[in-house]
């Protein structure tokens, strides 16, 4: 695979620049409400109609965790997290800097199974909302129960944010008294979601971080797909 010299861009670059310029001085608080775009990493949708045991036999060496058929379960591997999406459908998200070869390895491992492995790295944009008011902001537009008893650290849900479909993931926060939510949204809806979250967060003194560095995780899929 040749090295990529072309520049990649976040679809949010113009909006992030605009909103960052509107940040107020709240950034000097110890734990401000912060909205950032996560750096791009590999994301793969795995669909498979095979016994879990057989799938895990070949996938566990790659994921260092297991697919689970428990709804809304998140399994954390060394280099990735695996989200249960629907029956027989999972989303694998590489940790930053760990994208290399993920799609290809999954394709190789599942050859011969009734399965599909689809690169959706650019399909989703990930927004990270963190800080004490994060839950309140999302509750403005999300009908899912986000109370810590119902949506503890580590929980995820496919739900709605205002009028956009999202995957919401309650990531362990850096501070015990804080909350960190990952919001996966289709890239074409990302600016809508970003601006909506920003507007919702004004009440809580939200700050927006500039666009993430696009360099670290280039896409790893060959556009030709697995077999051609």
């Amino acid at each position, binding site marked *: *695979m*040749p*090295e*990529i*010299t*072309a*520049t*990649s*861009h*976040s*679809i949010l*670059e*113009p909006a992030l620049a605009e909103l960052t310029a509107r940040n107020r001085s709240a950034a000097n608080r110890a734990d401000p409400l912060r909205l950032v775009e996560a750096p*791009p990493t590999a994301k793969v949708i795995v*669909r*498979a*109609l095979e016994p879990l045991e057989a799938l895990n036999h070949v996938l566990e060496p790659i994921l260092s965790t297991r697919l689970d058929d428990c709804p809304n379960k998140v399994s954390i591997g060394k280099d990735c997290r695996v989200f249960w999406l629907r029956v027989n459908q999972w989303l694998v998200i590489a940790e930053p800097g760990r994208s290399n070869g993920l799609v290809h390895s999954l394709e190789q491992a599942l050859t011969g199974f*009734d*399965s*599909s492995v*689809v*690169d*959706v*790295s*650019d*399909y989703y944009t990930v927004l990270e909302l963190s800080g004490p008011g994060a839950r*309140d902001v999302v*509750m*403005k*537009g*999300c*009908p*899912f*129960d986000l*109370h810590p*008893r*119902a949506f503890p650290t580590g929980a995820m849900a496919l739900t709605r944010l*205002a*009028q956009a479909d999202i995957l919401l993931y309650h990531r362990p926060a850096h501070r015990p008294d804080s909350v960190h939510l990952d919001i996966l949204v*289709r*890239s*074409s*809806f990302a*600016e*809508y979601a970003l*601006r*909506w979250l920003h*507007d*919702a967060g*004004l*009440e809580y003194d939200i700050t927006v971080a500039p666009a993430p560095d696009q360099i670290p995780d280039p*896409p790893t*899929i*060959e*556009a*030709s*797909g*697995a*077999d*051609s």
Partner: protein
Amino acid sequence: MRSSRPDNARLADRRGDNHDRVVRFRFNGRNLEGLEGDTLASALLANGIHWVGRSFKYHRPRGIFSAGAEEPNALVQVGDDPALTEPNLRATQVEIHEGLNARSQNVQPSLQFDLQAINDLFWRLMPAGFYYKTFMAPARWWALYEHMIRRAAGMGEAPAAPDPDRYDHRHEHCDLLIVGGGPAGLVAAQIAGRAGARVILADEQDRFGGHLLSEPGCRQWIDRQVSALEAMDNVTALTRATVFGAYHDNFFGLVERVTEHLPPDRRPRFAPRQRFWQIRARQAIMATGMIERPLVFHLNDRPGIMLAGAVRRYLHRHGVLAGRRPIIATNNNSAWQTAFDLAEAGASPVTIVDTRHAPPDRLRERAEALGIEVLAGHSLTGTRGRRHIRSVTVRPMRANGELAATGSRRIRCDLLSVSGGWNPVIHLFSHRKGPLAFDEGLASFVPARPSVAGLHAVGGAAGHTRIGEVVADAASRTRQALAECGLDSAPFERPETPETATDTDTLDLEPIWELPTDAAPARTRAFVDLQNDVTAKDLALALNEGYTSVEHVKRYTTTGMGTDQGKTGNVTALGIVADHQQRAIPAIGLTTFRPPYTPVTIGALVGRNSGRFLAPVRKTPMHCWHERHGAAFEDVGQWKRPLCYPRPGEREHDAVQREARAVRTAVGMLDGSTLGKIDICGPDAAEFLNRIYTNAWKKLAVGRCRYGVMLGEDGMVMDDGVTARIADDHFHMTTTTGGAARVMAWLEEWHQTEWPELKLHMTSVTDQWAVASLAGPGAREVAARLVDDIDVGREAMPFMSWAAGHVCGGIPARIFRISFSGEPGFEFNVPSRYGLALWEQAMAAGSEFGITPYGTEVMHLLRAEKGFIIVGQDTDGTVTPHDLNMDWVVSGKKDFIGRRSLYRADMLRPDRKRLVGLTTDDPSIVLEEGAHVLAADASPTPPVPMLGHVTSSYYSPNLNRSIALGLVKGGLDRKGTRLVVDTGHDRVPVEVVDSVFFDPEGERLHA
């Protein structure tokens, strides 16, 4: 403007719950002072102002009547700013703040001198149904009548400018929602909170306590409860929060008034004015208490006539003595407490008029001790005082309820405080279709059983009047609700009972729905619904005119309508209707309560989903480039797509013409990222496509693409697009931009429900890929400059093939050699993060070939020149492939969705509408899309048979004339014939031609 004497009715020795801080506000242009903690109503009463408005129909002077949400009279317009002013606010619920500016509504020019007060002189001409009878004919004048009536009956003025306030939403979930923060609600919250439940306690007032706020001895009890609740993390206690509706599955709507009670300069900048909470509760407690109902008697609507409980509320909560010479009229014990408290507060003389002949002795003794005169077994036969009540006339009643022959007496007063009993607030229970029963003791409706589907009525709302019963009922029902949630409430001991005036909490009510009067029947005016000016006589009229159902009586007389929805008048109206029909109230039933309990602002329901958040705006990865280069955008579903790229000074039409010429003569580039894309993978993928599409797919070679049409089960064209075979078991499908989600759901449904045996998987990849489509004679040259390792030569990449590799410096890409313009086309697909880089490099590489970005309007024009259809423009759900002359895309050798429908008799009619080309005789005339196509000799007057309509119409710069596509009956047989197209004011002659206008042989495509 002179400042009024402040607080002339405020008692020096008590302030109730008010603070010391003086608040200045304006009412009807007068500068007034109140205390922080006052409602507008309590502040006005403190200033001796009762008369605050005029009635809806007769424009009679009306005063503050209640102390809460039930207020029928004291509706005010708050604010002067045309964007912020709000009508129909209840003065009893508006909290005053510095600078508040309120005025009476329904008065012109002023409260004191109102032109329409003349209506009251002609009141006999305006009974119930007046409008229906008077404004019937001529029917065409209704528009004028309605305008006049609306003005005459206006309930305040709507804002004239967009609302600048912020409104917001919040979704919440809880184990237990408790509606109402009075004694029952506070006890319920205490028990549920200690049991560890997730509790939301909501009260519509600015503080908790409910009915106990009228009880001077309960302050400490309330404070103890509230501070205990505040210490619990699991309890969310909301004040100024009205639960306005109860819906299925214990879903509740609540509006929290967040900042509107604050002066504008103290409102946090981004905090919403109101917040609409959507609450999903596992169980809910309805602790909504009771609302007092008035007595109905002759001239019972004057300013200075108030509900007895309200008078007591103003006294104890706000330290306001609503009158110094009060009369208390009642049919039950509760109002006696008002009399006692007024006497103790210094009012004198105090008179009690009780319609009962034998009120309890213990009350009589206490009245006597306080020097209160008691007139038992008396009726109120009339009142005097146009702007404020001055006196009442009373007369003894016989045991049978008729007036005694003698004993009429007139008593001076400045306050008439009335009580006809108490109605449990059962609205939410009724919203949930909970069954109601008539309680004889209360003479009112109560829940027929304690709960309906997880909503439990407790305390006053369940019909309890004694504080001990209220508390015990709330405690036991709450424990039961918690048990339903699987929560154990055992650790909490018996709840503490607040100390209230228990002498009067057993009502001993003797219902009397309309007090007898000695006034002549023709002159009698006893108001049942104060807000809608409905009298007892109006109800009788409705019955006489044949409206027997209470629902009909309600609609004919408008009783129970308006902003208060009859909270004080409904049950009384039922009593009067029942009396007239000589039936029992339960036999005639109750009108239905529907949400909202009190009016809800549209702003709260909309929240932030307006303006730029009205609907999501979807953007492509190249959007910012289009913006920078002056694109004019159009909305395609939720997407923003460039329509064309007008240069400075260039009109859109000219830009479209320029871009369309450029594609035919040089090369153009279109952002096609919005196309729906579906990855289909699995050994049965080809078989699946074979069933979905009308044409054959099994033999499509890897590396090739094919155009496909899919039909609904009705045989009508549903979507189309090009699908490529990536591998034996792997396809890349494209759909129309607008159809992507529908097609994805359609495919999943067929796979999951009909053909689960087919081994394949589908994944939407629309947003994964950015798409740049090169088209034009120069497309191949430009493509060749962009690729790293892909051969785009004629032999290596023939029409309808695709190749994978890298472009623009290592970007992984799929290139599809397809065309929607009739020109050679190369569609570059790259991961969307590289869309912008691809686009910019293509623009740079194409500059020497005259590359021109083009928009959707140009794409539409170019395909129309070629007669290619657009699903949704040239089709409308009634069009088959045959109608579109596309039999070539329909296989005769296999089955597919919709095939059987294609052979129904109607599908084989020879005169079905078919797609044809239409050319105007005058090449400069561009037809209107949607215009009707008629026979050349069609009649100039209706009926005019319609032959079809124009579906697409453009001016073609490449043909130097206008072109149009249309669906025309028997269209193909009409080729060469002449028809006309109706433009609405003109008929344009056209010729029916083939639908392919440009390069019919398709030679350019393979160039």
